[in-house]
């Protein structure tokens, strides 16, 4: 009853006029240093925008002008000239295969690590050690991972994962070896995204499940993980982007060969134990810096690579939107 006159009263606060709001914020009234900083921030943002546009633009123009559908379905051939050097079917296959192996190893491991860190965390000291371990792996340059991988996979005990020369030396280079090291690139991204998803689930969701007589394991498997599927997917997609874009591991651990060279034996196993190349190594080898000497093909391959990564980025954006 008492509120009726109040309702009738005019709104006490008129919205501030646009002029006044701008006047308060006008940069002409700022100290010189602030103004300089403000302009620098603007300039940096614009510069980055321009740079991104130039990268995509140049690759688009060059790439499209050299891209032929036939390049996507022909295997590369060794040739002194560009016209005879074939397409880049094998590098595309290599990229897809390596990404599949890497993410197949990284996703389950990363989800398991994240679940343990977010849901169990016992003993706490070990959990901290694992956290630091994951951070450290995320910080190791991929060329160091590649070098380490070569040392590991060239050991006789792991000879079954690659090929052995006539003299008995283990190559240590194969899709298995490169995929295993690639998974370490993707792992921290999967761990981070999964953990983030798990910590955002309210505690009452877990309690609701425990109150139905469910164990912690069932709760994780049937309630928590299904509800953070978009987070896991976006972590895995980011990880795939890392794998697709990496060159050092391909050059050192996969052999960076022109074609997929099987190791012989059973068909799939032969490829996995064999060497190969990916789009990144193909671009590297065929750029003016490499030995293939087919820059037009390099442009076209770079364009395909860029499109793959952009598509993955869009997938991540869509998945994160779906999460909200």
């Amino acid at each position, binding site marked *: 009853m008492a509120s009726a006159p109040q309702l009738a009263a005019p709104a006490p606060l008129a919205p501030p006029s646009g002029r006044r709001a701008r006047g308060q914020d006008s940069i002409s009234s700022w100290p010189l240093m602030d103004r300089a900083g403000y302009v620098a921030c603007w300039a940096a943002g614009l510069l980055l925008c321009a740079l991104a546009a130039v990268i995509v633009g140049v690759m688009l123009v060059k790439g499209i002008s050299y891209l032929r559908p036939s390049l996507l379905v022909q295997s590369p051939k060794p040739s002194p000239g560009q016209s005879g050097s074939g397409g880049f079917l094998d590098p595309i296959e290599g990229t897809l295969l390596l990404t599949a192996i890497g993410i197949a190893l990284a996703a389950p491991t990363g989800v398991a690590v994240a679940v343990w860190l977010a849901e169990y965390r016992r003993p706490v000291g070990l959990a901290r050690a694992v956290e630091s371990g994951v951070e450290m792996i995320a910080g190791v340059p991929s060329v160091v991972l590649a070098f380490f991988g070569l040392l590991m996979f060239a050991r006789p005990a792991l000879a079954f994962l690659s090929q052995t020369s006539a003299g008995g030396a283990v190559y240590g280079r194969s899709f298995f070896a490169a995929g295993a090291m690639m998974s370490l690139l993707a792992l921290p991204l999967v761990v981070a995204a999964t953990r983030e998803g798990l910590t955002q689930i309210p505690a009452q969701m877990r*309690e609701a*499940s*425990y*109150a139905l007589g469910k164990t912690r394991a069932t709760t994780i498997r049937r309630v928590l993980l299904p509800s953070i599927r978009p987070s896991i997917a976006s972590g895995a997609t980011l990880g795939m982007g890392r794998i697709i874009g990496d060159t050092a591991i391909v050059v050192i651990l996969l052999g960076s060969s022109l074609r997929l060279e099987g190791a012989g034996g059973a068909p799939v196993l032969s490829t996995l134990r064999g060497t190969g190349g990916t789009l990144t190594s193909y671009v590297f080898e065929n750029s003016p810096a490499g030995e293939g000497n087919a820059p037009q093909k390099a442009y076209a391959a770079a364009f395909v690579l860029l499109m793959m990564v952009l598509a993955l980025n869009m997938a991540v954006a869509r998945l994160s939107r779906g999460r909200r």
Partner: protein
Amino acid sequence: MNPVMPPPVRRLTVEPDPIATAHRPAVAEPPTNVSERMRIENVSLAYGERWVVREVTLPVRQGEVLALIGASGSGKTTLLRSLNRLTEVTDGASRAGRIALDGQDVDELEVTALRRRIAMVFQQPNPFPMSVFENVAYALREERRGARRARGRRGRRELEPAVIEALARAGLYEEVKADLDHPALRLSGGQQQRLCIARALAVKPEVLLLDEPCSALDPISTATIEELIVGLRESVAIVIVTHNLQQAFRVADHVAFMHLGELIEYGPSEQIFDRPREQRTREYISGAFG
């Protein structure tokens, strides 16, 4: 220790609200077939060093509704959560005293089995992010311990009658029967809470714990759920924690008033609301604090 003197008491005895009484036809007759299912004996609960419940002794009976009332921080929710040992998932929580279900100490029961016998509904509706059907079916799928004997979960056809029965007991089936495969999060708040009740009832519990089940709901949903609670008391012992005295009056047969972790008074609903014996109960009922 002498408690702080209460502020001057506004004398304001709760008149039985005509709407509330009209809304509670079932309770007009005293409940029949009352039998004790649980016994809380000298139970104390602490978070770390801080005692939040001290030496509470209470019976929980099937055939009637027990309401735990009291101000915030009086320990009523903690006491409720200790009945299905859910306090154990809280870090630093500890308990003294004995809680028995049908004469057996709850600590001797396997905890997942215990929680299937003592189901719980929470303050906020918390359906799982899955379909309406799956929310109830999840409760029905049994924990399989150890042996990997049963590969493959129980199928939908097998579970459907039980899911429908649970939804019907919670008074929700007619509203959702066309949308069983829709996401549960698309239901209204009141429907979500009844889904949570259905989920809890699906495992055929002996005791149903309700932690302020209507505090997040509108009056109409509240009325629906209160009717449901009164209707369920014949088949399951019910303990409800509520801030809402009107609600306690409407649904409870016995009321326990708690204050700062202690049980101040326990008695039949009419006695607590009309003739409280303790001064603090009288003050709380009359709105002096809370």
